[in-house]
């Protein structure tokens, strides 16, 4: 039995983390070279949930392909759908009613909060504290209930369609969102008490997985991962889409570049999302929720690219159209894919216990990486 311990060099051993492992949040496979408990090298092995969405979308119409993207980054289904709808609208030059725009932003920001909630709970769980997970899900359930009432599903809503949204908001929507805001604001302090201020937690996060600004850009990281390193990359701010240009909110930036900075960015982003919702919730304009569109959508010949900001970073949808009813080639530039490539650089020289802290703050969603 003893010679089976695979060694690459004297004193080094290789362990496989995943595809089934609680810290990988899905089916990521990491091949880690260890020296004692110190990580010497890490190589991600993807594809355990590669579902060939890009190939599949080539045979789906422009109305149909949107639903597959909900399954890509399922924690931000609305925002993925938004990206696709925006690309189709940009190509067809559809003007969408203002009410639809506002509803889209409202549900997108709620999704962002829900996604960050889940990340917060799951990351605390990875670090060994189990109770925050349950507190995070309590708030998240309120959002899923709101979503269910308006969009008809809890997770993969398929609510946004080219030209607007599928249905008008539910009559209870405004009231429930307002209740949620009040509840959430009192809970966010609990988060700080339980996790942010905790000395064990801070020691686990600080000076772990440092990513410098130059590396963050070179590795193509986006979202909170890059903003923790001081790279301004919030698409909502720098290339505003939809009605984000008219809204007041701050881009959260931290400069330390370690796990704790990424943690703080996400927690502060939740507060920014709340402020966006507060700006809009009382000012939902009257009107249609969907523009009149043809039953069969045909995109003009050309290439279209749309960048949006998901909770994990920049999602790009690249559609090459030959003028037919289905895309000729479709590419999703997913945020997790690039963020993951920085993991090896960030984790080298750290202990295996730090792996969960770094991966936790990268907030990987594996189907989003593999597509």
């Amino acid at each position: 039995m003893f010679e089976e311990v695979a060694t690459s060099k004297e004193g080094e051993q290789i362990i496989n983390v995943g595809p089934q492992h609680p810290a990988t949040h899905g089916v990521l496979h990491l091949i880690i070279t260890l020296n004692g408990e110190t990580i010497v090298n890490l190589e991600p092995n993807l594809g355990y949930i590669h579902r060939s969405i890009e190939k599949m979308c080539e045979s789906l119409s422009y109305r149909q392909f949107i639903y597959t993207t909900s399954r890509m980054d399922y924690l931000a289904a609305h925002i993925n759908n938004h990206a696709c709808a925006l690309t189709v609208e940009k190509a067809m030059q559809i003007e969408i009613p203002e009410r639809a725009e506002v509803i889209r932003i409202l549900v997108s920001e709620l999704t962002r909060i829900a996604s960050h909630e889940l990340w917060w709970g799951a990351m605390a769980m990875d670090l060994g504290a189990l109770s925050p997970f349950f507190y995070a899900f309590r708030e998240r359930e309120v959002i899923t209930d709101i979503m269910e009432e308006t969009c008809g599903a809890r997770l993969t809503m398929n609510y946004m369609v080219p030209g607007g949204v599928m249905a008008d908001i539910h009559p209870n929507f405004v009231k429930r969102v307002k209740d949620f805001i009040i509840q959430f604001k009192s809970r966010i302090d609990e988060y700080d008490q339980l996790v942010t201020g905790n000395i064990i937690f801070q020691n686990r996060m600080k000076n772990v997985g440092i990513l410098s600004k130059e590396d963050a850009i070179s590795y193509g990281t986006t979202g909170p991962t890059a903003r923790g390193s001081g790279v301004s990359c919030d698409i909502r701010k720098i290339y505003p889409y939809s009605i984000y240009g008219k809204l007041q909110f701050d881009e959260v930036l931290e400069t330390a570049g370690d796990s704790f900075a990424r943690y703080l960015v996400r927690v502060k982003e939740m507060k920014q999302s709340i402020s966006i919702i507060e700006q809009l919730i009382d000012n939902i304009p009257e009107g249609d929720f969907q523009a009149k569109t043809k039953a069969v959508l045909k995109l003009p010949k050309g290439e279209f690219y749309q960048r949006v900001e998901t909770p994990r970073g920049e999602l790009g949808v690249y559609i090459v159209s030959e003028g037919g009813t289905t895309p000729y080639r479709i590419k999703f530039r997913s945020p997790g894919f690039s963020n993951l490539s920085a993991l090896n650089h960030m984790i080298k020289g750290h202990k295996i216990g730090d792996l969960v802290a770094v991966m936790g703050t990268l907030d990987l969603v594996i189907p989003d990486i593999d597509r």
Partner: protein
Amino acid sequence: MFSIENITNSFHNWLSSVLSETLVMLVEMGLIAIAAIALFAVLGLVLVYMERKVAAVIQIRLGPNRVGPMGIFQTSADTLKLVLKEGFMPNNVDKFLYKLAPFVVMITAMLILAPIPFAKGFQIWDINIGVFYITAISSISVIGILMAGWASNNKYSLLGAMRSGAQIVSYELSAGMAVLSIIVLTGSLNLNEIIESQRNGWWIFKGHIPALIAFVIYIIAVTAETNRAPFDMAEAESELTGGFHTEYAGMRFALFFLAEYINIFIVCAIGATLFFGGWMPFHIGNWEGFNHVMDFIPSFVWFFGKTFFLIFLIMWFRWTFPRLRIDQLLNLEWKYLLPISMFNLLLMTVIAIKGWHF
């Protein structure tokens, strides 16, 4: 006043009247063995159930409630299922050590049970070096964990076992120091004498702040020694899947699981004995009336009450704190706990010599 001592004594007298001396001893040994195993089983079931309920209430949910009233048979069902699971041994394990490991852990836990006074005059083995015996025996359980980790032929298990080794070796020091500071006060290693010395008040109150510090250090150190969160390096589910017991299934896993909870019970029982007076009721100095009222509560209620309070404390830690990293864990011991407990021991010695305690 109700006392178990009377029952055991009269039972012993009755046995002696019908049987010869050797037979009496054999019969009593057999009975104690059965009682100890029964206690183990019951404690395991109760503690696991308690853990799940405590976790549930802290996590704003209900916890097991569908198997039996309030779910009290949940752990029985789990145990029965684990017993009936397929006996399973992976290929390429070191078969002898793999099979032996859970028993080493279990027997260690059983051995420590011997000198613990559960109630007034109710003790398996009244040994005059009780505390020393416990600290000596409790170090053996790490060998079982190392065995399990090594024999499993799994890198996760090995890492977990190595972590556990480093952890227990270092935390034993500060746990020992904390125990020593009480020994310094009592001047005896005999657990019964330690309890007796707390007749006019428990050490945690009589020993001023140093006793409190010793207690905090003790609780932290034993949490680490029993591999409980936030020091559950050896299992560290999100890092090492299952740690040293990754490859164990069914009954062998159940033994590890059970031993973990028995160990918690034991360290808490010792903590209760040293700092909270074991079965000794709550006495305040010379308040005869008050002390007399307290004596009406049976001694085993006091003992189990205190022990379960400490167990709850350890569970409370588990469901609040994140896990430490292995180097931070050792840092905490060598940079903080050990210096503080050494200084604390010094202070305690001064108090003991000067007789400043109550």
